[in-house]
């Protein structure tokens, strides 16, 4: 019988057994050591370095050979290194400031107003307010159905106790849109609209000497076959020429915008040329749509505003061409929500000539922080044995939904 003896604990057997690695006692939480800089190679002209290249192995005293950079002769998408910025075909010397869907502008709405040469008017325009109040434009049993919609979004949509914030804000918006759209039987113009999500917007404009762009997939867009009617008349539009834009010196208006040198100047609404619904009607934004990017209310309003402006600008470009005062202004609306608080916005683009600070400005009507309800609690809030906030839906405000409905029905009445 021949037995394989392993002398000295494994000299014979180690090549037969699997290699065992028992180093569990190493330190697991150390800092990553800093990168070691390679030794600086000094080139002295006229002096040829003797390298160990021909010898095919390291020899102490000889220098490291320098090989030419090897390039793969075929294209492998898994090993692709992009060229540096200045070698890219779209490189331009002049930088462009890009506003994308994750930009959080420092000055918020003020910055957006300066960038787009717009005058802010607080509150919704009077036509929309009267539309909201008129009884012909109301859903039967409106209050009860809206409250049911809120309760469904906040309480009844899940097998758990309560749905999460992203889920309920999304469900609430869809429920409210569903309620508004059931009016199609009495307002047939609603049938000339369609919803589009995940569309990519691109808009470019010059402001002073700087070039600005808006890019990104932002929210739900409602497109319409007919354009929205203009909200303010020629007189008001002419009056905006006297308005002075608010600056916030010493902060530059390009703060927080992404500065790029490689860009393409394009104006694209996200749809091809012969789209049957060419006009943008309303954009719907959700605060919780992007989990990586949490915007504060002011920044969220700025984002809403910039993308509304982008949509209006692109369509004005397509219809009228660049850089002029529009005789028929383009109107786009926007609604943003976080599940309870709504922001309503109506934007009217009067001019695409945004280079100077004077002249006719664009207008925006902003109704911010409108609450739909106060509390929607699954369990009541009890402090010192007294019920402060009861369970269920509390503090419902019907005016908010009337405004939502008015924005929806604008153009279809």
């Amino acid at each position, binding site marked *: 019988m021949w037995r394989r003896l392993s002398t000295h604990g494994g000299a014979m057997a180690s090549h037969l057994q699997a290699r065992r690695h028992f180093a569990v006692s190493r330190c697991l939480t150390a800092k990553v050591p800093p990168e070691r800089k390679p030794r600086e190679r000094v080139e002295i002209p006229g002096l040829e370095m003797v390298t160990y290249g021909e010898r095919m192995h390291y020899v102490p005293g000889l220098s490291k050979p320098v090989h030419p950079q090897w390039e793969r002769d075929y294209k492998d998408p898994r090993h692709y290194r992009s060229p540096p910025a200045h070698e890219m075909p779209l490189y331009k010397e002049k930088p462009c400031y890009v506003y994308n869907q994750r930009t959080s502008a420092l000055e918020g709405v003020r910055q957006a107003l300066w960038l787009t040469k717009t005058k802010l008017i607080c509150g919704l325009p009077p036509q929309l307010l009267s539309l909201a109040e008129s009884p012909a434009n109301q859903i039967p049993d409106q209050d009860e159905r809206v409250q049911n919609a809120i309760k469904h979004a906040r309480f009844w949509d899940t097998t758990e106790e309560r749905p999460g914030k992203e889920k309920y804000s999304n469900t609430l918006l869809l429920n409210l849109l569903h309620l508004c759209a059931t009016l199609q039987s009495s307002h047939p113009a609603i049938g000339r609209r369609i919803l*589009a999500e*995940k569309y990519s917007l691109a808009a470019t404009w010059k402001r002073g000497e700087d070039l600005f762009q808006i890019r990104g997939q932002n929210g739900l867009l409602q497109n319409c076959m007919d354009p929205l009617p203009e909200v303010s008349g020629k007189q008001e539009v002419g009056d905006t020429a006297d308005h002075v834009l608010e600056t916030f010196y010493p902060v530059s208006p390009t703060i927080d915008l992404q500065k790029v040198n490689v860009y393409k100047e394009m104006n694209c609404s996200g749809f091809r040329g012969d789209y049957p619904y060419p006009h943008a009607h309303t954009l719907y934004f959700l605060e919780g749509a992007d989990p990586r990017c949490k915007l504060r209310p002011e920044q969220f309003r700025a984002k809403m505003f910039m993308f509304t402006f982008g949509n209006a600008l692109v369509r004005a470009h397509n219809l009228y061409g660049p850089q002029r005062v529009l005789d028929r202004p383009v109107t786009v609306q926007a609604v943003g929500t976080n599940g309870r608080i709504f922001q309503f916005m109506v934007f009217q683009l009067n001019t695409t000539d945004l280079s100077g600070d004077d002249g006719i400005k664009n207008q925006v009507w902003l109704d911010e922080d409108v609450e739909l309800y106060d509390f929607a609690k699954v369990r009541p809030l009890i402090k010192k044995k007294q019920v402060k906030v009861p369970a269920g839906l509390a503090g419902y405000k019907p005016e908010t939904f009337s405004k939502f409905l008015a924005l929806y029905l604008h153009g279809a009445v």
Partner: protein
Amino acid sequence: MAARTRLPLLFSKNLPPFKNQKLAHTEAAVKEPTYPPIVPSLTAKSKSARGRQVEDHVKKICASPVDEKLSLITRIQRKKFVVYPQTFARNADRWYQHFTKTAYIPGLPERFALDPEKRTGVEKEESSLPAGAQTTVPGVEIDAFADIRSLVTRMILQEHWHMKKRKPFLYREQEQMVGPFLRNLVTGLTYSLAKYNPLLPLSSLDIDPQVNFYWRRGQRIIPKGHRRGRQEPTRFQIDDQPHSQIRITQQLPQFTSLEASYAAEVPEVAFAPNLMPLFRRQYDNNIFTGAKLPDPACYGHTQFHLVPDRYHRDRMARQQQSDQVEVFLRANGLASLFAWTGAQAMYQGFWNHEDVTRPFVSQAVITDGQFFSFFCYQLNTVALSVETDANNPRKNLLWGTESLRLYESVQDGAVVGLNDDVVKLLVQFLVNQP
């Protein structure tokens, strides 16, 4: 000794003094039982005690309100088979029919017949119909139908032609290309047809809802363990996520009567469910229609499903499995609709021991963007467990179509070969009302 004395003869004469006098006008006095009924013990360690405990539990469930009923039925967690509506198991529809006691009837009920002779109802009389005339659904005018047709065309074009999109990511084509199209289709059709169906304006449209159902069917002998040799009921759970669904406040009318289902045939599968393959897990037992109990829209109308990304009918055809194409869709329709109608019935208080008094009806459309299959389900019985199924002649019914192509392709900004029949069926499904 008094005990051994015989009873005197006089006593026997007096004993039945009223026996021969039959008084015609008075009723016999109801004899109150002097002692309570003799029932098995409740706490003894015996089979009859266990039986009595089960009976008491059943009575307790029957006597409680609906939300307590649901929580009592789903309270105890045990290992159960998780039934996936979208499964690649072979002949899954036969297995699912056996689990849910459903009979499959090919084709749709008479209400959705596509033949022009059988259709009655309001149609605009057009005296000079050109050849290849446009026909329509009863109740919907020809102009409205033409509008709907162009709406469907525009929606197809928006997703596939007009919107600038990148090539869809691997295995996400359904989510990126077909999902938005189906959503727009459902919403567009619902609102256009709202004036023909008064239920639709009051309905609730859910996007990406959850539907769950838990039931028991059949039993097995426990092979091993401390309970070896005893009978254990087989528990099933369906957790489904349709793409979208419409829930309404009133119930849809039945397709056929309860009695008509007695003659239907349900395939019996002799094998154990885990051979399908089906796997057991233990977690929360949920019964959910898409919204909790307090929601007023508690009845179901139509569900829309998307096939998963790994389901390729051309790949199945290459592997000579073309029959499994329809099997997959049928199994999906069956399981999803059974779960939905079962949950609706549970929400009304019917359960295993209290069978439904009226049939529950729902519809479903399963699509992959081009091919559409239509299913109608009528739930006639929820009593599927061993004790209640022994004398239950009722069966559930599933009607279904083969997959029909909606359009051939999209070329140069136009939809080629739009099939009117599929659009008509969609319209008929959505217009269905009591």
